[in-house]
């Protein structure tokens, strides 16, 4: 499927109908998801209205993890099949991914203030999300730092892959660390079982986030395709065409 898109024009044609579709899904979901989340869904018997934070927090958390998986998958694809479009996809996903991770941390923290009585606990989930956020920053730094696009792309593959293999390890180790250091009194696994009246807005918001992410990737890849075109056009100006002298067989001296 990826080789089908190796032609930028074909990708452009695909994006031309896929982008509006993603936006349609996004706004459709938001049109129902926002009112449902903010108004029509019931408040939780324990958490009260703070449960409404969940509708932006949980999808962001899911996306933060999914997006890194996406980056790793694209890195692997680029690694194995040397597919430059996969690099562009991974690059386009990194910014949104970092924002999803940041939003997860911020909304989680704001939710934690009234619920746990503190802005931050070194809870396993929070901590591993923080490290995931750091990984995103490192990944983005690789793209930002390099002067040569091609080189940055190939280095980013390494960071994407190593970062991804590391995610479960971080998760596991943080779990371990947390259970040793922190009595699990604040967070209970048996929280409120989700009622369908809450599941609907949650699902809609999650779908909206996925649509938004797809649109981010599509537009990011399109931008990088255009940027490549511009660079290619600009290139003959920057370099001088070289015409090596024809080497005659008898061109011996000395």
């Amino acid at each position, binding site marked *: 499927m990826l080789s089908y898109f190796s032609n930028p024009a074909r990708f452009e044609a695909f994006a031309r109908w896929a982008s509006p579709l993603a936006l349609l899904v996004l706004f459709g979901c938001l049109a129902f998801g926002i009112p449902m989340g903010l108004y029509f869904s019931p408040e939780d018997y324990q958490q009260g209205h703070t449960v409404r934070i969940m509708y932006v927090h949980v999808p962001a958390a899911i996306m933060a993890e999914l997006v890194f998986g996406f980056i790793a998958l694209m890195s692997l694809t680029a690694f194995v099949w040397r597919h430059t479009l996969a690099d562009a996809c991974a690059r386009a996903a990194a910014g949104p991914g970092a924002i999803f991770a940041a939003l997860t941390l911020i909304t989680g923290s704001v939710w934690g203030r009234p619920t746990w009585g503190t802005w931050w606990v070194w809870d396993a989930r929070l901590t591993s999300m923080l490290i995931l956020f750091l990984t995103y920053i490192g990944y983005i730094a690789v793209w930002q730092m390099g002067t040569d696009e091609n080189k940055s792309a190939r280095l980013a593959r390494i960071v994407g892959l190593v970062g991804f293999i590391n995610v479960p390890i971080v998760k596991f180790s943080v779990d371990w660390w947390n259970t040793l250091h922190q009595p699990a009194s604040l967070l209970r696994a048996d929280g409120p079982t989700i009622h369908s009246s809450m599941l609907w807005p949650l699902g809609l918001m999650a779908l909206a986030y996925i649509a938004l992410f797809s649109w981010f990737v599509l537009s990011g890849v399109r931008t990088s395709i255009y940027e490549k075109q511009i660079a290619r056009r600009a290139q003959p100006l920057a*370099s001088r065409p*070289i015409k090596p002298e024809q080497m005659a067989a008898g061109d011996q001296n000395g």
Partner: protein
Amino acid sequence: MKSICSDKVSLQCDEVACARGGVMVVGGVSFAVGGGEAMLIFGANGAGKSSLLGAIAGRIPLMEGTLNWAVNDDVLPQRQFASNIAMLSHDGAIKTGLSVEQNLLFWCRIYNKPRTDLASIVERVKISGLEHRRAGTLSAGQMRRLSFARILLADRPVWLLDEPTASIDDGGRADISALIGGHISDGGLAIVATHEALDVPHRSLRIG
């Protein structure tokens, strides 16, 4: 000593183009050279001599074209051919904190050569007596001779030399020309990026 050149090495380049930082610097280079020949790549500063040499060495990937190294007409992949190459890069691969001898001893171990070779090599590049000096205290010309000693030590059929006579005086240029001449008359192959003529029978490739 020159048993390494009993195998015939050759290089065939077709329409090679290479890039630096995503920008093409050299394009449309075609030539073929073999053992017993020296090829000098001439060009002004920034013409892409080093990039082309880097591409020939397999360090910089080609943008276009093909480049084939062969031993006795068997084409080898670049990585596999690497053990036939001795490379003199722009920076001489010298540790200024180590003595001349320590520098060469390191490369002795890398190339798996006995350290008994050292004395004669130091003599051939005319830096005898400096063995225990710290490389950082050598003059620029002596440094260049020291890095050339490593090429002799490597004892490999293909020499890729980037500006071997940079910051070296007339006498030094003659010495290095003589060493390259000796190498090719032993059946070796030398490709030299240079901005000045060397006194060696050679073919030339002008870029830029």
